[in-house]
């Protein structure tokens, strides 16, 4: 009984077992299985040949509508099965639960809010974003007794004074997400909003503390539109995620660039708090400040980033 995704046989089985006879029930059932069906009159329109309608009355009076011909009765499951669409709505989230408050605030803050939104191509590949974020934001947690190691020790009659424990990678610690709103990051505000929403999706809205900063985090954080506070690291072990250019763009274009020594100071605060720092930087690695590579995990925020590269970069720190 090896089965993968729901497919046409599931629909046929449901229609058969439940002996569905009416269109409303069949349509509802199709939606439940991720196979929405079109209205019948739309089917008729689609099927009609594209010929010029010579009966159009140009006098301005409405012509009599064509009589609606009811389709002939047929086993509804055949009709539904023939209308299965490839697009599945099941990966859609519930609209009211979808947008996180942090993302909404981010969108409001954006200088682009009154301008029409152009198409957006994310910096990461959508298909691998979940895996990349899982790899980037996971930290070591104790996952219970390592039975294999413990039993091996007992069998060898080797003494041990503490139980060997399994170490797991998990996102359960959540994350502190810091968005760089310096002038150099202005071209990436939509990318920040996009990645923020993804991070919330992957590790949970209650697990993410979102704040923004300009220059560097130790200059103070902004929470929402009005509140400000001094920087405080999250609880020990919680990853700190930066969506930043580490001052790279500012350094060439603006006077008030965050210097590497300010980032070093921030990395020191994080290290003393026991929190790993992961920076998504939308610039090539040859432009990353050399001294920062040792103190934080820097990920190249573009479409070449993979889950494997991310895991390797995180593990190397």
């Amino acid at each position, binding site marked *: 009984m090896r089965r993968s995704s729901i497919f046409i046989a599931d629909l046929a089985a449901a229609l058969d077992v439940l002996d569905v006879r009416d269109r409303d029930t069949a349509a509802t059932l199709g939606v*439940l299985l991720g196979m929405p069906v079109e209205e019948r009159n739309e089917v008729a329109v689609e099927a009609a040949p594209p010929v010029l309608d010579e009966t159009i009355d140009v006098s301005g009076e409405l012509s009599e509508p064509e009589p609606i011909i009811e389709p002939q009765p047929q086993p509804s499951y055949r009709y539904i099965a023939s209308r299965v669409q490839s697009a599945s709505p099941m990966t859609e989230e519930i609209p009211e639960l979808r947008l996180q408050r942090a993302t909404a605030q981010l969108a409001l803050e954006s200088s682009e809010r009154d301008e029409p939104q152009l198409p957006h191509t994310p910096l990461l590949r959508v298909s691998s974003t979940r895996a990349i974020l899982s790899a980037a934001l996971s930290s070591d947690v104790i996952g219970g007794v390592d039975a294999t190691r413990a039993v091996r020790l007992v069998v060898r009659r080797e003494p041990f004074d503490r139980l060997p424990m399994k170490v797991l990678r998990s996102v*359960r610690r959540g994350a502190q997400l810091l968005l760089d709103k310096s002038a150099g990051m202005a071209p990436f505000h939509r990318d920040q909003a996009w990645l923020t929403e993804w991070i919330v999706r992957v590790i949970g809205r209650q697990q993410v503390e979102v704040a923004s900063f300009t220059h560097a985090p130790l200059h103070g954080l902004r929470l929402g539109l009005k509140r400000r506070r001094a920087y405080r690291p999250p609880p020990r072990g919680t990853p700190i995620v930066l969506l930043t250019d580490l001052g790279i763009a500012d350094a060439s274009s603006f006077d008030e660039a965050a210097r590497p020594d300010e980032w070093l100071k921030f990395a020191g605060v994080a290290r003393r708090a026991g929190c790993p720092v992961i920076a998504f930087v939308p610039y090539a690695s040859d432009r990353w400040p050399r001294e920062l590579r040792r103190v934080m995990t820097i990920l190249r925020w573009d479409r070449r980033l993979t889950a494997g590269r991310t895991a390797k970069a995180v593990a190397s720190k």
Partner: protein
Amino acid sequence: MALDYKRIFDKDAAIPAGAEQRATAGDRRDGIVYVYGEDIELAVNVALATARPLLVRGPSGSGKSSLAQNVALKLGWRYYERVISSITEARDLLWRFDSVRQLADATSGGAKQYPPNRYLDPGPLWWAFSSETAELRGLDEPDDENVSRAEDPAKGVRNSDRAVVLIDEIDKADPDVPNNLLVPIGSLQFDIDFPEKTIRADEKKPPLLIITTNEERELPAAFVRRCVVTVLEKPSREKLLEIARAHFGESKIGLYERLADYLLEVAAAKEAKGDIAPSTAEYLDAIAACRRLSIKASHRKEEWNQISRLILEKPQLPEASSR
């Protein structure tokens, strides 16, 4: 208009005699009372007809978790549940290995050495797929001293050869957990290590898996594609009143109406601020409190405001709400 199909599960079926209402302290999980819409009934029937898990989405307090218990009661099937937390691993739903007990046995002088399967604790999916193998912890026959038998947590509650399993709040799990459940929920089978064996559900009597999510984390597309998906919407005023009557009877309609109006007002204000709105669970709590404390619909506004603040509004601390 009523949907026209042959029901495997009938929402109007009577609860079998013997299923007793538990005390209503805390969240009500006895499943005795549940108010169905036609859409939920159809979703349950489709999941049964296709032997696919039913993924129930919807806001907190909308009745996702209590659905499974009520379906099990009405079908007369065994019922298992596991509430997911951030430390839950996919294997916990299949089996756990009690290594601490094994170590204790192995290191205590003179103790008999038992085979490893003795330390396998079957999880809810194992019990639901194959209670016979779960009871013997994967062995084909009872061991000599019959000491390895596991106790079915649902035994004696309902002796049916079929089961309903609630996997509650799957969104609380680490992102890898749903991916690690693809085979068990898709193919209704999984492997155990001691002894090496594949546990399979009876194809003719598959269990009904009901999985709930509060959308705290998005679920992997591959996981969702294996499920029948239904969404419990926020209840309307009429639905709230229907639920209140089902739980508490017809005697305090004025109270139900006033609290329903309060709830909808508070919910609208909360949603406008982007906060989580109170739902059916809070509504039932508020009615229970008012009944118990003899607070009537005719009481002054100040008292209603206090009840509302305690049960419906639940204000966050400023620091917490900024997270």
